[in-house]
């Protein structure tokens, strides 16, 4: 088992869990089970306008009664989100989907299932986070790839280089200047644009 996966249930005693739900028997079932599991936890009610900042996992109520107020979604929050859902009616399902929660518990709540949902929600959240990171990195790569191609074309035009020579030139400069090829290409494009603006570009 990978250490990343194990961490999801092994550090449950060190994480901060916030439960946003009105007081009562239903909340007690969830709160007491989280206490048995050994999480550090606190309850919040009424529904806060801003998500609690220090939480690793937030259990929060999803219900039509909230009139759409006080809902933030998984993309705004640095925590794993578990929805506590009152009904399974289509309108509640819509609200549930809007939250982008990583897990859901539906009334009537019971002790069993809470641990699994907690672990799965943390796992989905960290998977999503990793995927998001990967996407951002890939987008940056595509952007710089376009830039490098553009710079190579400029070099081929202005310096009468073949395509391999243009790339080789940028690589060599990057190595000498201890910067990336993308940065060299940015310099080339910037310099070219500046010359154009000064009326010194190639005719």
């Amino acid at each position, binding site marked *: 088992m990978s250490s990343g996966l194990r961490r999801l*249930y092994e550090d*449950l*005693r060190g994480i901060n869990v916030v439960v946003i739900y009105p007081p009562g028997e239903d909340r007690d079932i969830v709160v007491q089970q989280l206490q048995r*599991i*050994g999480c550090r936890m606190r309850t919040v009610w009424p529904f806060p306008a801003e998500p609690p900042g220090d939480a690793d996992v937030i259990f929060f109520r999803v219900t039509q009664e909230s009139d759409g107020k006080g809902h933030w979604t998984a993309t705004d929050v640095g925590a794993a989100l578990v929805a506590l859902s009152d009904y399974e009616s289509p309108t509640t399902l819509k609200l549930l989907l809007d939250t982008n929660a990583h897990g859901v518990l539906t009334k009537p709540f019971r*002790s*069993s299932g809470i*641990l699994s949902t907690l672990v799965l929600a943390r796992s989905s959240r960290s998977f999503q986070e990793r995927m998001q990171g990967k996407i951002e990195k890939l987008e940056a790569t595509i952007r710089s790839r376009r830039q490098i191609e553009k710079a190579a074309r400029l070099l081929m035009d202005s310096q009468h280089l073949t395509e391999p020579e243009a790339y080789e030139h940028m690589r060599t400069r990057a190595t000498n200047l201890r910067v990336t090829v993308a940065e060299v290409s940015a310099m080339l494009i910037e310099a070219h644009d500046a010359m154009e603006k000064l009326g010194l570009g190639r005719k």
Partner: protein
Amino acid sequence: MGVLYSRSGATSVTESEHFFGTVLAIEEINALGGVLDRPLVATAYDPKGDSNEYRRLAGKMLIDDEINVIFGCSRSSSRKAVLPVIERNNALLWYCSFYEGFEYSPNVIYTGAVPNQNSVQLAAYLLKNRGTRFFLVGADYIYPRESNRVMRDVVEQHGGEILDEVYLDIDAGKAELEEVLRDIKRAQPDVVFSTLVGESARVFYQLYRTHGLDPKTMPIASLSMAEEEIRLIGPELCEGHITAATYFGSLKNESNRRFVALWRQRFGDRPTSTWSEMAYTQVHLFARALQSAGSLDRAKLVNAARAVKFESPEGLVSIDAENNHCWLTPRIGVCRSDGEFDVVWEAAAPVKPDPYLSTFGFSEFWLG
């Protein structure tokens, strides 16, 4: 009250011990006038080690027999099978076997040990006194797999080594057991940790010495092997093997003297063990809870049970209000040639049950 233990099937010996312990406590309490001047009346069925039968018979008790409190189940599979029926009828199950934890139901009182009350202490004792090279062998179901997870984590965290981890069918026969014994002989571990159960565990112990393995230098360590099964194996074959449990028949206290005397009187020359004792103790906890609740209502009984304390044959026992499991005193015993165990270590006080503890850190690990 309902009594639901298998008198036949793979775990018939140990579940019969549960049954006898339960009977002994009921008879003892009734001889003293019962609870609130009424006798405890038991209805017992034999599910024969079959999970479907457990579920069917639990349903029969709760619906046809109008019973609300059941004492029963031993392996986790049987508990999981009856749990939906118990919860749906808002009944109460008293479950006295040690198990792997990670469960809580408001409809169950768990009176057996969870891993923070037996496995961890056993691992610490073995690492400190026996060596660092472990061979794990178990029956293929949830309890052995979870026990081995704990054992492997703890051993590896503290500088030990798991040489192999082998699972056999729960009814594994001589041929499969002999193959494992040959592997053990080849691997030469310091300790064999066995979570085999029932007949195949007993045959494993019987064959151990004939394969040239010496319990005194290379003991089998277990969480379940207790006095009655040792008697069936032959105590002379078992001298030196190690068991972690919260009760041993050799304990010297007033409550145990009374328990052993009653047991001998009722069942003759058989030993008491953790299997019979926990079943006996939980009926006493129930009787005290019923006395103060004055009702068989599930919620009232559970609330009352959480306030009960009982000087049991294994010492002071109480039910944790947070998780419905029991505060118990972990002990390590080494088997003697007469089939009883010498207690070589015991906790200074009852240990809080922590059924959701998934990791066992360095702090407080080494036994005091």
